């Protein structure tokens, strides 16, 4: 009875599903928004940051549920592996923290280490986390046509406890620095978008211009919230972000200026991507383009404006467009947001109104040469290898103070001892055998006692062929620090011939170290509350610690000779045969006197047998055993008939064996 009622209910559900789906309910459940942030960078480059966000509610009971906008493969992934949060990034090139900034949300959230980086937090019991991770890597590997499945083995992922994120041991983190990222990874990533790259902002993604860029990083971030909101069980938020640093074509613009090295190249969307925006993706809730003018640039432009104001006293337009003096925009922004304290400015364009006939092409033309610098992280982190040769070396992480720290010191001069907290996460593969007791800290180029500055330290040493080595550190450095260098020694391991990759002489990669500054907040604060409905801007405003990745290190390891394993095996076995044979030979050599002694003694069984064995060859040689001299014995042992007999026996056995084995 109950069964029947459920069946009818299911049937009716099936019948009404099309009607339901067209209803408002579903529309509310799934949302999609697309945004693009453009930002001129100090070194004549342009940053383009695409941000797509898809949200879906997810209820536990609906197993084979249909999604309208949300990619089904992703929701299945989340459901199957109980993912709480996950981030996968494919990156090529290195984010230049010195020039492109290290203190804004873009650099701390979207700058990623080269290759593939994957981390995931699972909502399963502790002992199942590893199994879930393994399955997840395989699924993602299939989804994104990448060798993420190499992260499956326990020697390629780790579980940072607190230096990266705190997730109570349910976090797994792995990187593949060597992974080559190409369009075959981008295509499946674009497939997850409702409009793919056919319409909307994603239509801008011209493959040649993206892969010609200095840095590109495609990112997929998943958050599955289990909180009961809107009466629904749970929701998944899928963020897809593509960050590209491009250099505008210089030939086209800026040739007319005499000081062309000083002036920034002018650019437009069509000049950097070769395409224009044909209108929004109709499925998107919001579809905006932003242009960010960062703080350093705004300050410079204001100075410039004051200077020009001294020449010409004519009034300069509205307050919002005051900084427009330095450059011209081809399209007037719909809105302008100013940041509260840090002065950066955001121009917002809505592309809802653009169509095929009326394409959106934002262009920026510089009027005056401006030189500015991006805001930096408190300490500029870099990492390098020391030592030569293939036996040992050391890894050094150097932290240098930047302009920000100097300002910071000036501000906090009154406080007696201000401390700068730095979290360091360093992961090394097992074949880099790190001696953790050799950890050295040099503050302002003077060696210091490590325990004075290390607040907390946790080490999980690497185990050969089983696990990675991981070191998490919290450093408390004085604010007036100029430089700090962490130095740790290692021995290079020697691998089995099969463990070397095909290009073994290229070297092995040590994944980037992660340096974060939890006291500093990378988020931007905008005054206008109305922008909080834009997912990207709310993301930019999130309070996130400043985070930076160091360089990937390339360690050359010694290689054995790959071409001749057989020679090694045979030569070594020959040595062993030599040992065994010569020792046996010398041990079974009996002195003539002893033999006689044995004969004279009362014969026990063994002696009897031995006597017979000794007599037999003597008889065969036609000599009496008494006249046998030790020298003759040893010289004639090579033509010993017993030996011939044995050889014949062995040969006979071999022949029989051959015969029967056929």
């Amino acid at each position, binding site marked *: 009875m109950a069964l029947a009622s459920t069946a009818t209910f299911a049937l009716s559900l099936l019948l009404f599903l099309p009607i339901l789906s067209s209803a408002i309910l579903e529309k509310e459940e799934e949302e999609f928004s697309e945004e693009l942030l453009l930002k001129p960078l100090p070194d004549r480059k342009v940053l383009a940051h695409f941000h797509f966000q898809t949200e879906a509610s997810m209820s536990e009971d609906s197993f084979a549920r249909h999604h309208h906008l949300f990619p089904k493969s992703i929701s299945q992934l989340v459901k199957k592996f109980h993912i709480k949060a996950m981030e996968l990034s494919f990156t090529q090139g290195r984010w230049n923290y010195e020039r492109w900034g290290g203190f804004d949300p873009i650099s701390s959230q979207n700058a990623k280490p080269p290759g593939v980086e994957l981390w995931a937090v699972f909502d399963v019991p502790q002992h199942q986390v590893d199994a879930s991770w393994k399955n997840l890597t395989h699924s993602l590997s299939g989804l994104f046509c990448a060798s993420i499945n190499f992260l499956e083995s326990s020697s390629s992922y780790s579980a940072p406890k607190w230096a990266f994120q705190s997730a109570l041991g349910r976090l797994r983190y792995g990187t593949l620095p060597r992974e080559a990222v190409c369009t075959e990874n981008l295509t499946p990533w674009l497939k997850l978008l409702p409009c793919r790259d056919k319409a909307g902002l994603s239509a801008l993604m011209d493959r040649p211009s993206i892969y010609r860029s200095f840095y590109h990083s495609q990112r997929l971030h998943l958050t599955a919230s289990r909180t009961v909101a809107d009466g629904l069980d749970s929701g998944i938020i899928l963020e897809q972000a593509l960050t590209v640093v491009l250099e505008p074509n210089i030939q086209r613009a800026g040739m007319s200026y005499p000081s062309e090295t000083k002036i920034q190249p002018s650019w437009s969307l069509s000049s950097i991507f070769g395409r224009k925006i044909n209108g929004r993706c109709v499925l998107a809730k919001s579809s905006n383009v932003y242009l960010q003018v960062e703080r350093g640039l705004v300050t410079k432009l204001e100075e410039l404006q004051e200077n020009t104001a001294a020449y010409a006293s004519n009034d300069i337009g509205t307050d919002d467009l005051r900084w427009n003096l330095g450059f011209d925009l081809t399209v007037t922004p719909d809105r302008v947001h100013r940041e509260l304290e840090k002065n950066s400015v955001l121009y917002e364009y809505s592309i809802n109104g653009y169509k095929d006939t009326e394409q959106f092409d934002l262009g920026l033309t510089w009027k005056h040469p401006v030189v500015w610098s991006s805001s930096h992280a408190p300490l500029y982190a870099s990492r390098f290898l020391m030592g030569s040769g293939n036996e040992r070396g050391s890894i050094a992480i150097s932290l240098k103070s930047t302009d920000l720290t100097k300002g910071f010191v000036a501000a906090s001069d009154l406080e007696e001892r201000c401390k700068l907290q730095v979290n360091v996460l360093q992961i090394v593969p097992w074949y880099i055998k790190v001696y953790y*007791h050799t950890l050295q800290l040099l503050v302002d180029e003077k060696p210091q006692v490590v325990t004075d500055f290390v607040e907390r330290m946790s080490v999980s040493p690497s185990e050969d062929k089983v696990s990675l080595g991981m070191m998490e550190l919290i450093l408390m450095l004085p604010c007036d620090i100029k430089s700090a260098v962490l130095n740790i020694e290692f021995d290079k*391991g*020697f*691998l*089995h*011939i099969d463990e070397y990759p095909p290009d073994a002489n290229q070297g092995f990669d040590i994944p980037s170290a992660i340096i974060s500054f939890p006291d500093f907040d990378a988020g931007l604060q905008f005054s206008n509350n109305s922008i909080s409905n834009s997912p990207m801007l709310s993301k930019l405003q999130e309070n996130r610690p400043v985070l930076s990745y160091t360089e990937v290190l390339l360690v050359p390891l010694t290689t054995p000779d790959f071409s001749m*394993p057989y020679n*090694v095996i045979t030569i070594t076995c020959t040595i062993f045969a030599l040992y065994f044979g010569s*020792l046996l030979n010398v041990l079974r050599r009996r*002195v003539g006197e002893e033999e006689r002694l044995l004969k004279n003694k009362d014969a026990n069984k063994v002696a009897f047998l031995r006597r017979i064995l000794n007599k037999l060859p003597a008889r065969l040689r036609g000599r009496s055993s008494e006249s046998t001299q030790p020298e003759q014995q040893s010289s004639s042992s090579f033509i010993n008939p017993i030996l011939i007999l044995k050889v014949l026996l062995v040969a006979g056995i071999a022949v029989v064996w051959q015969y029967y084995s056929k």
Partner: protein
Amino acid sequence: MKTEMAMGKKKVQWFWTWIFGSVILRLILIYFPKNLNLSSRPEVSTPLTSIRRLAEGYWLKQSSMSPYAGSMYHGSPLLLTLLGPLTVTRIEGQPDHLLCSLVFVMADVVAAMLICAAGKKLQAAYSSSLQFIGLHHLLENSDVLPSGDFAALVYLWNPFTIVACVGLSTSAIENLMVVLSLYGACARLAPVAAFGWVMATHLSLYPAILIIPLTLLLGYGPDAPPRKLFWRRKNPEVDNPTSSDRSCLEDESINEKRMLNIFSWRPVVLFLFWALLWSSYVLVLCGIYVQQHGGLREMFKRTYGFILTIQDLSPNIGALWYFFAEVFDFFRSFFLIVFHGNILLMIVPLALRLNHRPFFLAFVYIVISSMLKSYPSVGDSALYLGLLGLFAYELKDMQFSFFLFSGYVGVSLLSPVMHNLWIWRGTGNANFYFATAIGYACLQVLYLFSLIFTSLLVLILLLSLFSPLVFLN
């Protein structure tokens, strides 16, 4: 008589001068910056004996982790308690590892003293037994230097020992334990012998096979000519009254008792009892030390398991590292069994053949194990080259001795060069270094061969000297 005394005094003085000189040399070398980088040489520090790994193990233990976490330390927990604190103690203005170095220098000197004492016991026993069978005239021409003193000096002045000591290789302590057990057995001190054996086995596993020669040594007494000569001696005693000295008849009667009392069980049982006691004591101590970190099971896995499975493939003077780096994984366990089996296979034949010379048997076992062990270092060679001095007299006409000497010199000069070419300059490849390792292995095989061959020749000599008395009638 007086001149003899003076001679003896002079000799003693001379001996101590040389010992003192070797200590001074070590101290001078220690004061070189960074120990001349010897502590990171592959010839000196294997994964088992490296002081850096020990310091890492101690650091891990201090930061409340298992000393065996990671694949760094594979030694004994007891060494960690002994040497660990010394690795972190620094004295202002002194070299970093000064205290550790002093421990190793002391270990070397004590080992040399024990070799010397054992040599004296051996010589006394040998001469008395020769006297007993009436061949004491063989000893007339051996007035150069007591073999014990000679062996001690050879051990201390051997470049291998010096390098291992200055390079802070823990093999100095392993060697000390082996020598201690041998001395204990020679002096019939069962507790000392048992302690040395248990500790040596605990530290490096291979000395476990020494239980056979130690038992023989305790049971039969030190090396002597084959026992059948004594039987013979007893029977035709009346035939050759001139050959034995009348003045030492009392001595002889005691000797006779000892010689003819074939196997005395008492010291052997005592030895086994003490061995059991010491090993349980060591296990309890280790157990206390590692109880928070996986217990004894983990310790055995990380020490003996590491030795037996040859996981670390970093180069050393042996040939096995390269073999296991190249061999197909499928055959790995097979070859592991074969190579370790090779050590065990020869135990019984050697024991049967050399059972009348237990000390020499122990020596041969030491040579074999230091040749075939998984992570050999020059410290192991140092021990058997030092013990060679004890048999210098009988092995003086050893075959190929000049060839062997030049071989050892050549290999020890070529091996660092090849290592440098391969690892540091990158102009050579692994085969260059492996070739010297193979050369070294061949040399050791030849050494072992000529060692046993010569000792059997000495036996022939003895028998031929003895046989006219016996066999002519």
